């Protein structure tokens, strides 16, 4: 099978990005980026499917120059090919343009399955995989936690999450788009050196301007970011200071005095 996996390069886990002076975006300067975690699960799953079924895996990212790093990670994990749609203007942050570019790349690869993480941790929109499926007129299953492909029948039995521990099994025709849920299989640890070595692997670069997309279709760009804000403090959190022992003492005393324990 041929699988395409879309990977986004997003600000790192444990950092709160600074808001840029213009107020409607973050300040990327000095900010650490990484491959979107849900997309890493998508890569792991694609590679596992390749191991079982044969075929190849192409990792694709859309973003500025730095986004290549996400493809190095994909290569280090075992991807066969990598395509970088270079977008310096919107920096991979225009949802509509991303879907259009992705649809074009996916058509060219003519893949049997397209994987993407369930959600990107930067814009938290969760629409990419679904919109891509619609753009390609392919069936989409979201929040997938298990995939069993029947290559002969050109179908897959997939399990998806429904919340509260409930899951749902369905049969989907190939080709299809699957948005991959966290934890579909364990993420393998990637030694830094393997990522460094992967930097030598060839990446096909496509300038997004050269793809002939029509990002200004009427009504398409319906959402405007007016401003980014720090979330308001709840005003109820009492921070207990001191050494670990002092903090522990204060906490337990307070919990006891208020009858909580």
């Amino acid at each position: 099978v041929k699988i395409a996996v879309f990977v986004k390069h997003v600000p790192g886990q444990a950092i709160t990005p600074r808001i840029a002076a213009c107020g409607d975006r973050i300040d990327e300067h000095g900010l650490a980026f990484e491959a979107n975690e849900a997309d890493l699960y998508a890569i792991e799953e694609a590679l596992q499917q390749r191991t079982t079924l044969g075929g190849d895996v192409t990792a694709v990212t859309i973003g500025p120059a730095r986004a290549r790093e996400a493809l190095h990670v994909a290569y280090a994990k075992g991807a066969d090919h990598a395509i970088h749609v270079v977008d310096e203007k919107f920096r991979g942050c225009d949802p509509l343009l991303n879907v259009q570019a992705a649809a074009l790349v996916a058509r060219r690869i003519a893949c049997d399955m397209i994987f993407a993480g369930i959600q990107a941790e930067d814009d938290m929109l969760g629409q990419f995989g679904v919109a891509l499926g619609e753009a390609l007129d392919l069936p989409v299953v979201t929040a997938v936690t298990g995939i069993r492909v029947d290559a002969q029948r050109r179908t897959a039995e997939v399990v998806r999450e429904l919340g509260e521990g409930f899951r749902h099994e369905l049969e989907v025709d190939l080709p299809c788009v699957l948005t991959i849920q966290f934890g579909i299989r364990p993420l393998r640890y990637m030694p830094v050196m393997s990522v460094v070595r992967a930097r030598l692997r060839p990446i096909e670069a496509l300038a997004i301007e050269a793809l002939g997309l029509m990002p200004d279709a009427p009504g398409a760009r319906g959402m405007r970011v007016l401003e980014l804000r720090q979330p308001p403090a709840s005003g109820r959190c009492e921070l207990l200071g001191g050494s670990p022992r002092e903090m522990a003492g204060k906490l337990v005393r307070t919990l006891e005095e208020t009858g909580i324990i």
Partner: protein
Amino acid sequence: MACTEVVVVCEPARSQAEAANARLIAAGSEFAARAGAKLVCLIAGEGVAAQAATFAHYADEVLVADSPLLAHFDPYRLLGIIERVVGERKPLAVLFSHTHAGIDLAPRLAARLRVAVASNCLDATFEGDTACFTRLVYRGRLHAKVAIDSRPIIATLQPGSAPLPSRSTPGVVTTVAIPPGKPARARPLRTIEPERTGVDIAKSDVVVAGGRGIGSKENFSVVSELAAALGGVAACSRPLVDMGWFGVERQVGLSGNTVKPKLYVACGISGAIEHLHGMRESRTIVAINKDPDAPIFRVAHFGLVGDLNEIVPEVTREVAARRAAPASPQT
């Protein structure tokens, strides 16, 4: 404004869906009032008639599709129903809960209609004629205020508790037909219920949960020991389940369990929104995390900033010491 209806897409009852529906109806009702629009509730599933009757107390109209065909979550069939409603009634907005169903359906509808979708919203309002939403972005570390210019407005709203605006006269309940539709290329096979393991963390008065910040599986003992000292249960956030350390029966959050204990202690949990939904109603919340910016501190009552591997054992010791000598004076 030409459009006069706000449609809220409710979900068949399970415990989380009930809270999500309540919040969705409350937010939709306020949004509709601001726009001078009617509130229309749509509910589709098997055996949802009673639920539909309840919704009538809060909405101008309830649209109900009740059929064994909807026994399993079938996005294409549901989408067919929603698309037909949108086609016939041309609503101003279609609002969903940010649940597994909403996360699936809202972007599908938006893609079909070629309009924008504002997902992960905390609120929905109008400023003048502009529909504005506050969205979670960057793992919930920042909020984005966005305007939606396309119509119908499509958004998903984060679940949460909300008082429901009751009406003096119940709204009309209308049955909607399920469009035939072409044979789907994704066909439901079965719904898989959670495994019964005998563990029910929702029953405990004290829940001590560990998250990604625990670092290694061996370290989880600091969490279990505190749970034992407090006479509670140990639980975890999603990453520990994803890493295969625990089953979903220990997981707190949208995908796992919702808990409302007297005391919830979050150790090394940053507080992703999906986790917060599973524990924010706890009576007292203690957060222990090395990152003072972690969203968990925004729902916590008491915050301890530092290395959980140093702090949690101290808390356990302190609890044990006080339990051993309950009448001892303060040290």
